C-alpha cells in the first residue's frame, strides 16, 4: 500500500510537443504536490502555454505521460479532464457572451449536474430543485470571491479585472482538486494583481492545488511554493522560489546575455 | 463501340470539368484575399452567359462576350463595395448569410431581366452538328474552345500572380493582410480587385460553355456547390489543384450517368464533397506543410 498523501496530485513525465519545425515543449517532467501552489515561468515563447494546453487536454502530446489523481490523462478530451477535477482559466479571458456572470459560473457547475436534454425540456420539479441547488452553490463561490454583486450583469460588460475574477469563479465552481491558472494577472494593474495574489492563496488554503503560469515575478515569488522554469521548451530549473532566483542559468535566461 | 462511348463521356466530363474548375478558381481568388467563401460565385457565371446572350442581339460575338465580362466584373466590384467593404471583422456566419443573400438577389434580378427561358450563345466556330473527329471520337469544336479558354485563363492568372507587381500585392494581401497593410499596400482595394477578377473569369466561363450547357437564371447555386466541391477537392486556396479537381469531378459525374439515373448526378458530386470534408479537408493535393504555407 502506498500512502496516497505522498503521491503527487499531478505528475508530468517527459512530455513533448512539436509544431512543424519548432519543438515547443521538450522532455519536460515535474510534479505538483497536493495543497501547494506551483508556478511555471519562462520568457515569451518558452512553451508555458503549450505545456498548459497539454496538461488540460487542449493539445495532444507527442511523447510522455501525464498522471492526475493516479489516472493517466494524456490523450483524454478537455471535458473528461475537467470532469476528473482539473479546471483551468485562460490567458485571454474567455467568458461566455450573452450570459450573465451567474450563468457563466453555473456553467462551471456543469460537471456536478446530471439533467439531460429531456429533463431540461420537461422542467420537472426534481430538475428544478437540482438547478436551484447549483444556482445557490454558484452564488456561494461568487460571494467567496467578492463578485456576488455582479451576478445578474452580462458577463462581458464587466470590467477587465472583474471578468478575470468571474473566470476564476467559474473554474472554482467545478469544485476542482486542482486549478490551472494561465497568466491570471495579465492586464491587471498593481492593486488588482495584489488582490489576485490574495485570492489565489485563499483558494490554496481551501485545499485546492494550484498550477500557475505567470509573467509577473512579484506575484509568482510571493505566492508559489515551487517554481518550474522553462526556456526554449526545456525545463531548466524546478525549485523553491529563493533557489530559483539565485540560479545563474535562470538569471541568464531572463536577462538575456548578461555581459555587463 | 464501347471505346467510342467511353471517349464521348470523357469529353463531356472535360467540358463540365472546365466550368467547375473556373468556378473553383473564382472561389479561391476571393477566399485567398478575404477568407470569405463567396456563395454568389455561381451567379457570376450566370450573369456572364445571360449578358452575353443579350448583347449578342446587337453586337458581334467577340464584342458581346467582352462586354459581358466587363459588365460582370463591374457587378462583382460593385457587390464588394456595397456589401462587403465596410464591414469591420464580420463573423464567418454573417459572411455566409450575406453572400447567400446576395446570390438570391442576383438570381432573382436575373429572373426579372431574362425570365425563366433557357438561352445560349451560338457556337464560336461551326455549329451543333459540325464536329471534329479524333480516331472515331467526335468532338464538338466548342469543347475545344472551352478547354482552350480554361487553359489560357489559368496560364494568364498564374503569370499575373507570379510576375506582376499587382499580382504580388494581391498574394501578399492574401498571405497576411496586416503585414500587407504595413507595407503600404491598400488591402481594401485588393479585395475589391479580387471580386472583380473572380467575377470576370466566372463570366468568361459562362460565355464559353453557354453554347453547350446553356444558361438560365437559376444555374448559379448548382454551379456554386460544384465549384466549392472542386475548391475543397483541390485544397481550398489552391487554384492549380482546382483545375485538376474540376476535371476529376466533371469526368466522374459524366460517367455516373452511365450507371445511374441522371437525377442522381448532383448527389454523386455532393457525396464526394461530404466525403472530402470528413476525411481530408486539406484537399486531395494539399499536404500539411503546403497547407501552412498557403498560397495560390
Amino acid at each position, binding site marked *: 500500500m502506498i500512502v496516497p498523501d505522498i503521491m503527487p496530485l499531478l505528475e508530468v513525465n517527459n512530455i513533448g510537443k512539436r509544431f512543424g519545425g519548432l519543438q515547443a515543449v521538450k522532455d519536460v517532467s515535474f510534479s505538483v504536490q497536493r495543497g501547494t501552489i506551483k508556478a511555471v515561468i519562462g520568457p515569451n515563447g518558452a512553451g508555458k502555454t503549450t505545456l498548459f494546453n497539454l496538461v488540460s487536454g487542449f493539445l495532444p502530446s507527442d511523447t510522455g505521460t501525464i498522471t492526475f489523481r493516479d489516472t493517466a490523462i494524456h490523450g483524454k478530451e478537455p471535458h473528461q479532464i475537467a470532469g476528473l477535477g482539473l479546471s483551468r482559466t485562460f490567458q485571454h479571458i474567455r467568458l461566455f457572451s450573452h450570459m450573465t456572470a451567474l450563468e457563466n459560473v453555473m456553467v462551471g457547475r456543469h460537471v456536478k449536474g446530471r439533467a439531460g436534454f429531456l429533463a431540461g425540456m420537461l422542467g420537472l420539479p426534481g430538475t428544478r430543485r437540482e438547478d436551484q441547488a447549483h444556482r445557490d452553490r454558484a452564488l456561494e463561490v461568487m460571494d467567496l470571491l467578492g463578485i456576488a454583486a455582479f451576478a445578474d450583469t452580462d458577463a462581458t460588460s464587466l470590467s477587465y479585472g472583474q471578468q478575470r475574477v468571474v473566470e476564476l469563479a467559474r473554474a472554482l465552481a467545478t469544485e476542482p482538486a486542482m486549478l490551472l491558472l494561465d497568466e491570471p494577472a495579465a492586464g491587471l494593474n498593481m492593486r488588482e494583481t495584489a488582490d489576485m495574489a490574495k485570492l489565489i492563496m485563499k483558494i490554496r488554503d481551501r485545499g485546492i492545488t494550484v498550477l500557475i503560469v505567470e509573467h509577473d515575478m512579484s506575484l509568482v515569488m510571493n505566492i508559489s511554493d515551487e517554481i518550474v522554469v522553462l526556456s526554449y521548451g526545456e525545463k531548466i530549473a524546478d525549485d523553491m522560489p529563493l533557489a530559483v532566483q539565485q540560479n545563474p542559468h535562470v538569471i541568464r535566461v531572463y536577462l538575456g546575455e548578461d555581459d555587463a | 463501340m464501347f471505346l467510342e462511348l467511353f471517349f464521348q463521356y470523357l469529353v463531356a466530363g472535360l467540358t463540365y470539368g472546365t466550368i467547375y474548375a473556373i468556378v473553383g478558381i473564382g472561389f479561391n481568388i476571393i477566399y485567398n484575399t478575404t477568407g470569405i467563401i463567396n456563395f454568389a460565385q455561381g451567379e457570376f457565371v450566370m450573369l456572364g452567359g445571360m449578358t452575353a446572350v443579350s448583347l449578342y442581339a446587337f453586337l458581334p460575338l467577340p464584342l458581346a462576350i467582352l462586354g459581358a465580362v466587363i459588365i460582370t466584373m463591374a457587378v462583382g466590384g460593385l457587390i464588394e463595395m456595397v456589401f462587403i467593404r465596410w464591414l469591420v471583422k464580420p463573423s464567418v456566419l454573417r459572411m455566409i448569410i450575406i453572400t447567400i443573400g446576395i446570390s438570391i438577389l442576383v438570381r432573382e434580378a436575373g429572373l426579372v431581366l431574362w425570365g425563366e427561358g433557357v438561352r445560349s450563345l451560338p457556337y464560336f466556330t461551326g455549329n451543333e452538328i459540325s464536329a471534329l473527329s479524333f480516331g472515331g471520337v467526335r468532338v464538338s469544336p466548342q469543347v475545344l474552345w472551352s478547354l482552350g479558354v480554361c487553359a489560357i485563363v489559368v496560364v494568364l492568372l498564374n503569370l499575373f500572380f507570379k510576375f506582376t507587381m499587382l499580382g504580388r500585392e494581391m498574394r*501578399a494581401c492574401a498571405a497576411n493582410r496586416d503585414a500587407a497593410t504595413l*507595407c503600404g499596400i491598400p488591402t481594401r482595394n485588393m479585395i475589391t480587385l479580387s471580386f472583380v477578377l473572380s467575377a470576370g473569369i466566372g463570366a468568361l466561363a459562362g460565355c464559353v460553355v453557354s453554347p453547350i450547357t446553356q444558361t438560365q437564371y437559376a444555374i448559379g447555386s448548382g454551379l456554386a456547390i460544384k465549384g466549392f466541391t472542386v475548391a475543397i477537392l483541390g485544397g481550398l486556396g489552391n487554384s492549380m489543384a482546382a483545375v485538376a479537381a474540376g476535371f476529376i469531378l466533371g469526368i466522374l459525374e459524366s460517367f455516373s450517368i452511365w450507371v445511374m439515373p441522371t437525377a442522381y448526378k448532383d448527389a454523386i458530386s455532393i457525396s464526394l464533397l461530404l466525403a472530402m470534408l470528413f476525411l481530408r479537408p486539406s484537399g486531395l493535393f494539399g499536404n500539411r506543410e503546403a497547407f501552412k504555407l498557403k498560397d495560390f
Partner: protein
Amino acid sequence: MLRVHNLSAGYGSLHVLRRLSLHVKPGEIVTIIGANGAGKSTLLRTITGLLRASSGEVLFKGEDIQRIPPEQVVFRGCSLVPEGRQVFAAMPVRENLLLGAYVQHKRGKRDEVAHDLDRVFGLFPVLRQREHQLAGTLSGGEQQMLAIGRALMARPTLIMLDEPSMGLAPLIVKDIFHIIAKIRDEGCTVLLVEQNARSALKIANRGYVLETGRIILEGDAGDLLANREIQRAYLGKDLDGENK
C-alpha cells in the same frame, strides 16, 4: 518626430491604453518596456492605424496620422515591424523585400529599389544567401531579420519594432539589437517595444515603462537600467532584495 498625446484605445469594451503620452525625437532609439498585457503591441497598432484610438492624437512630423488609413501612414515614413514577424511565408525572401518597397514604387523611386535591396543585404548578409528561399522556411531569427529588412525597404524615417527578441535565442537577440543600433546610426529613428528590458535599455537613448496601459516611468535609458524598481519588476533582480 512622433508625439503621442493622451491616447486611449482598446478592443470593444476592453480599454488597453489609458490617456497615454510619449514622444520620440529624431535620431534616437526610444524603448517601451513592460510586461505581457501592458498594452505595448496595442500602442504600436494604434500608432500605425491598424487599430483606431477612442481618443487622443498621434502626431507624426506634426500631422495627426490617426485621421489617415494605415497604408498611408507607411507612405508618410513610419514603418512597423509587427510582433511575431509576419513575413509572407509562401513567398521567397526577395519578393518579401520587394513588397516592402511598394511605397518606393508608388513614390516613383523605382530605380532606388535595387540600391535599397543591396543595403538590406548588406545589413543582413544571411538574407542574400537565402534570397530565393521561401520565407516560411527561414529560422526565427532570419525571419525577424527579413521583417526588419522589409520595413527598411520603405525608406522609413521612423521604424517601430514590436518585440524583435521574442522567441529568439540570446545570441541572435544580440545580433538583432546590434543591427537596430546600426539602423539608428544610419539616421533612422527607432521606437522599440520590448519585454527583454535589459537588452533594449542598453541600446536605447531613452525609455518608457508601460504598465496596464499607462506610462508609469520615463527617463534616460541608463537611469532606468539603474533604477531599483525596474530591476525588481522587469530585470528579475530581486536577488539580494527585501525577500530575505
